[in-house]
């Protein structure tokens, strides 16, 4: 009997030790690769005492697939805008009332009331950017290209074979719809055929389709023109000063990444603390300096590095604002059409 009592005490003590260890503050962050400066995470850890574990993914869809299949364990993910809407509709997002967080007042309009989360109940803004074209002005006749998708889809003779397109169904489809003046969420097979014809005509003029190693490829001079995100373009320009970013007049894709707490997260308080931390102008400026993308927080301009402010790829000139076309999550039928066109393109 006495032995049993000792065993019970010992087991309880051990369980309490494990229990308290589990309650030590933690945050499991699931983010894009290379999207948060390590020093910033360390700063957060020392300010709050919360231990951060970072896992990475390379696309919204693979992250979504994992969460849809039922995976749990992550406290914070970083989906793009259209994915946020998708996740909220599916019930994969936790309602954390971001607008109540102390630093929310720093968020610039219109980012404080995005269409997919008008009351900012679920998401906090992080980085936003555009997807356009980077080209090396030194290798182009006249050192300047016309700001139109034409240079990309129907290139000049000198540039044939020296252009790379993103190997991304959505980005290529969207670019084609801007150029052809179609709705990017079109479900019409006739529209699909037009897009397919355009893309097929372009295919032989491309060097390749690739979404990886885009920066190195431009800097090394392997190609002259690259379909690219603006932050990557900025990083190219840092090493290749003659690089220029194009804002096509027919339309340029605008996307934003946001912090979101997945349903069933264990450390919601830690997640909220991190969201709050990232809405502070000094912190988010550090992130911008690292990633090369613009943020949505007022006052961060004072802390941005000069090269970022001087680069029109990141610091978009006002006159281009009308060309921005926000990303949309399209219907099942539209996605099916897009997938069909892409398969036919690559078959």
């Amino acid at each position, binding site marked *: 009997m006495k032995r049993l009592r000792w065993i019970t005490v010992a087991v309880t003590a051990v369980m309490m030790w494990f229990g308290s260890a589990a309650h030590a503050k933690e945050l499991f962050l699931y983010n894009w690769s290379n999207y948060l400066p*390590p020093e910033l995470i360390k700063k957060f850890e020392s300010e709050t005492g919360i231990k951060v574990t970072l*896992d990475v993914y*390379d696309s919204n869809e693979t992250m979504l*697939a994992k969460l849809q299949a*039922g995976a749990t364990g992550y406290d914070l993910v970083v989906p793009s805008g259209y994915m946020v809407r998708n996740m909220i509709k599916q019930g994969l997002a936790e309602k954390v009332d971001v607008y109540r967080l102390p630093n929310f007042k720093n968020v610039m309009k219109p980012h404080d009331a995005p269409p997919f989360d008008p009351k900012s109940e679920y998401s906090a803004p992080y980085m936003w950017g555009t997807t356009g074209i980077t080209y090396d002005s030194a290798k182009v006749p006249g050192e300047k290209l016309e700001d139109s998708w034409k240079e990309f889809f129907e290139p000049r003779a000198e540039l044939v074979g020296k252009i790379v397109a993103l190997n991304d169904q959505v980005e290529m489809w969207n670019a084609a719809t801007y150029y052809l003046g179609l709705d990017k969420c079109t479900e019409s097979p006739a529209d699909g055929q037009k897009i397919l014809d355009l893309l097929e005509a372009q295919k032989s003029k491309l060097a390749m389709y690739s*979404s990886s*190693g885009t920066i*190195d490829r431009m800097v*090394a001079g392997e190609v002259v023109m690259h379909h690219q995100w603006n932050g990557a373009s900025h990083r190219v320009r840092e090493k290749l000063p003659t690089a220029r970013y194009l804002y096509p007049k027919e339309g340029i894709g605008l996307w934003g990444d946001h912090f979101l707490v997945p349903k069933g997260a264990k450390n919601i308080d830690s997640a909220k603390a991190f969201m709050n931390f990232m809405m502070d102008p000094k912190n988010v400026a550090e992130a911008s300096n690292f990633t090369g993308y613009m943020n949505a927080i007022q006052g961060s301009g004072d802390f941005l590095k000069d090269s970022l402010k001087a680069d029109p790829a990141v610091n978009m000139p006002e006159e281009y604002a009308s060309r921005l076309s926000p990303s949309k999550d399209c219907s099942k039928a539209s996605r099916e059409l897009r997938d069909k066109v892409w398969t036919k393109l690559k078959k």
Partner: protein
Amino acid sequence: MSGHRGNPLWRFRGVAPSAGLFFAYLYLPTAVLIALSFNENRIATIWTGFSPHWYGVVLSNDDILRAARNSLVIAIAASLAGTTLATFAALATNSERFRGQSLVNGLLALPLLVPEIVTAVATLLFFVLIGLKLGIMTVIIAHTVFCIPFAYLPIRARLQGMDPALGHAAADLYANEWQAFTRVTLPLLWPGILSGGVLAFIISLDDFVITYFVAGAGATTLPVYIFGMIRIGVTPEVNAVSALMLMVSIVMVSISWLIGRARR
């Protein structure tokens, strides 16, 4: 008998040079990646100077070290488990034909036949369905499943055509002594088991898709970490960590060779 210089096979003069070419082909990318890990420039395609500072970056990057550690642990566990199960299975299917043989072979080969992404999502769905908490264990389980066929086939190939007399002798001895079995059949089987185990190890070490889906938070492995960087491109940091993994493997091989020599 084999290995003796007087061995008639040396009449096949093409063998040594083609083996030489083979190993050159095999190690060319390895040499490139080691050389690049010392590139001062972040961009792999432009060499600006020799610098070991990327190794310093790797060793101070906790995330990448955690990922590398997880990879090794999982690969060792999964290849050991998979090879053991595969050895038993190979021994069992070796004797006379038996009913249900094709079914058994089909089941054992199944993990090879299904595309990884499908296995990955299916396994995750299944784990969630039975309420299994995701973590390193789930990765080890999923890896063991596909390690089994990779170990099974070489072991099986080894067993086939092994002198039946030895097999019968072992069986007789088996009937009397478990020890005799481990001292006769197993040593004969050893090259097959080693080949199978090593194949299982590298397939587990390299796995990305399945690991991505079934790993718990914090259980990232090196391939998942590196693939996450695919948009940015491979940095010398990644080359450095790969070179470090190579060094670990060379150390392990040397140790096992020394042990082998000491035993003799």
